[in-house]
């Protein structure tokens, strides 16, 4: 059982709590924590209460959590909220490729339509779901990869550690987006999945580094020494005593990665290696596709960009304030 006085256990608690209070923004990441290990919920209620009070009084955290929660709700209920079918070419007869390729705003279509006459407002609403899915899956896959590598390195040490860390170093030596673009370019049939995988691979070394660092710090800590002295098996020490305590900072990182993944998906579209299939709307894809008309019809780019910025900001504000609340140095 993790030592309740260990600061890392405390971190974990605050994190669990913050994640559940954030209204689903990190719900998926949170579930994977449950897979890796479970933190006992006994004792320390006052601790949770004080942590919650600290976060509840933090306007930055509240703003971020509200934006994230609204975004997730929008993504869940989007088909009910969209006034039109996002794939129907409703205003196609207004599209004049020569003179006026983009139908403007009009009653029933507050933001106008795109170059094939589809309602932009509906596409933005419905696109929230695909955007969330891309962000969450890319983060989850990156997290899973980093978890595997980081656990291998941090738990076994020695040559496993140096091998894994050299691999991580090499991956980190390629600037992140370039790595993602290179991976996406490998796909013979680009799709939403190639985008997700390309972004996920870039996150692997970051998660691996973080996990290894906090696992290494724990190897010499008292609760691990105690478990070892009691003759607990190595696998049990790693999975039950070390991993759960190491996950706190990683989950904070996941919140930030989620924001980055949504932005990166847009950048991949901008560079021409994104998902070419635009039947299922996604904000990054909409923004990337808008560049063709960007100087004559900037609104086409501005709306999806505003959505991306708002959501990325929401997750970033939440992640940063969680990180600050978890950092023992900033608890003064």
């Amino acid at each position, binding site marked *: 059982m993790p030592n309740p006085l260990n600061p890392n256990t405390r971190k974990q608690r605050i994190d669990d709590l913050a994640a559940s209070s954030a209204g689903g923004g990190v719900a998926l990441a949170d579930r994977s924590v449950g897979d890796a290990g479970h933190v006992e919920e006994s004792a320390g209620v006052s601790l949770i209460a004080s942590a919650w009070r600290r976060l509840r009084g933090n306007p*930055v955290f509240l703003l971020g959590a509200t934006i994230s929660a609204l975004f997730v709700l929008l993504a869940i209920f989007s088909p009910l909220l969209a006034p039109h079918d996002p794939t129907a070419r409703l205003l196609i007869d207004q599209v004049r490729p020569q003179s006026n390729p983009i139908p403007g705003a009009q009653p029933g279509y507050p933001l106008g339509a795109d170059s094939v006459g589809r309602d932009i407002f509906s596409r933005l609403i419905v696109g929230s779901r695909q955007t969330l899915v891309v962000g969450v899956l890319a983060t989850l896959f990156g997290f899973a990869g980093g978890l595997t590598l980081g656990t291998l390195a941090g738990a076994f040490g020695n040559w496993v550690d140096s091998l894994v860390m050299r691999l991580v*170093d*090499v991956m980190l030596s390629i600037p992140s987006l*370039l790595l993602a673009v290179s991976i996406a370019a*490998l796909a013979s049939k680009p799709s939403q999945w190639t985008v997700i995988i390309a972004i996920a691979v870039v996150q692997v070394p970051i998660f691996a580094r973080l996990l290894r660092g906090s696992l290494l710090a724990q190897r010499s800590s008292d609760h691990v020494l105690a478990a070892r002295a009691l003759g607990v098996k190595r696998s049990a020490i790693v999975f039950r005593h070390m991993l759960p305590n190491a996950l706190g900072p990683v989950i904070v990182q996941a919140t930030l990665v989620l924001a980055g993944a949504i932005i990166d998906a847009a950048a991949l579209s901008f560079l021409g290696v994104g998902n070419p299939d635009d039947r299922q709307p996604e904000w990054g894809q909409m923004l990337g596709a808008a560049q063709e008309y960007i100087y004559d019809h*900037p609104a086409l780019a501005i709306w999806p960009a505003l959505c991306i910025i708002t959501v*990325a900001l929401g997750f970033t504000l939440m992640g940063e304030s969680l990180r600050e609340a978890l950092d023992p140095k900033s608890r003064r």
Partner: protein
Amino acid sequence: MVGVVIVLSMLVFLWLRSLPGGTVSAMLGERATPARRAALEKALGLDQPIYVQYWEFVKRAAQGKFGASTGVQAGTDAFDIFLQRFPATIELALFSIVLAIVIGIPLGYLAARRRASWFDNLSVVGSLIGVAVPVFFLAFLLKYFFAIQLHWLPVSGRQDSGIDATRITGFFVLDGLLTREWDSAWDALKHLILPGLALATIPFAVIFRITRAAVLDVMDEDYVRTAESKGLTRRVIRGRHVLRNALLPVVTTIGLQTGGLLVGAVLTERVFSWGGLGEATALSFERRDYAVLQVLLLMFAITFVVINLLVDIAYAVIDPRIRTR
């Protein structure tokens, strides 16, 4: 470090071989006859075993022979393209990082000094907004408002084509200053502002936050309290004890921003048709110009590794604790 470069070269090599369609399709198109494909494969040595191919690749790479560009500047040697465009990107990146440092460090210091004030909260949220905006969209916004709508600054490129400037170093602003062609330097500087701002946002946000966090950390250290109780003046405490120690993590961060700058350059240069390595990277992905891509990827990675090494050395110079270990 040498190991990292070797592994990287292997990865870039394998990556090139596994691209969809491969080099032959890229050069001949999908509909080439099998006989022509086989002939080209033989000419390129693609019928050899993979380790022989890799060795050939390394030998050619060591001599700077990566083949001719097929899409970015068709016919030009890929390594020459790298050399030609190198100064443009360095000029832009240096301008941006200096901008980010000059604004980021003082702002971070002030925010930490007035912790939890409106100034602090505003600049923290502002720096986070900077991170949340996609770089290419910011670049587009700046270009749209300040160049296209307001005509305050030039739309694209590094210098007006009408200016007959003497080239010495390839850094246009520096060239203008060295040759005393002031109008040429001024014009190049005007071209730098918008892409420089777009590229500087993320490094600025990161440097600002690291400085703020570091100053907060240091202000609580025992030696600062000791200095205060010794009765040292505020100026001495802030300069010698707080700022000097707080700058240690900032130095590392500046080095780590190089990778981000390269990525940002790809997006920013594309928007402003900057004519540097970043634009070449974006174009070579669009046009599937693998000869140019392999050079750029290798050189980007090597630059990044070298800069990280320099940061480690700089850190050891600044921080005496590391040397004694």
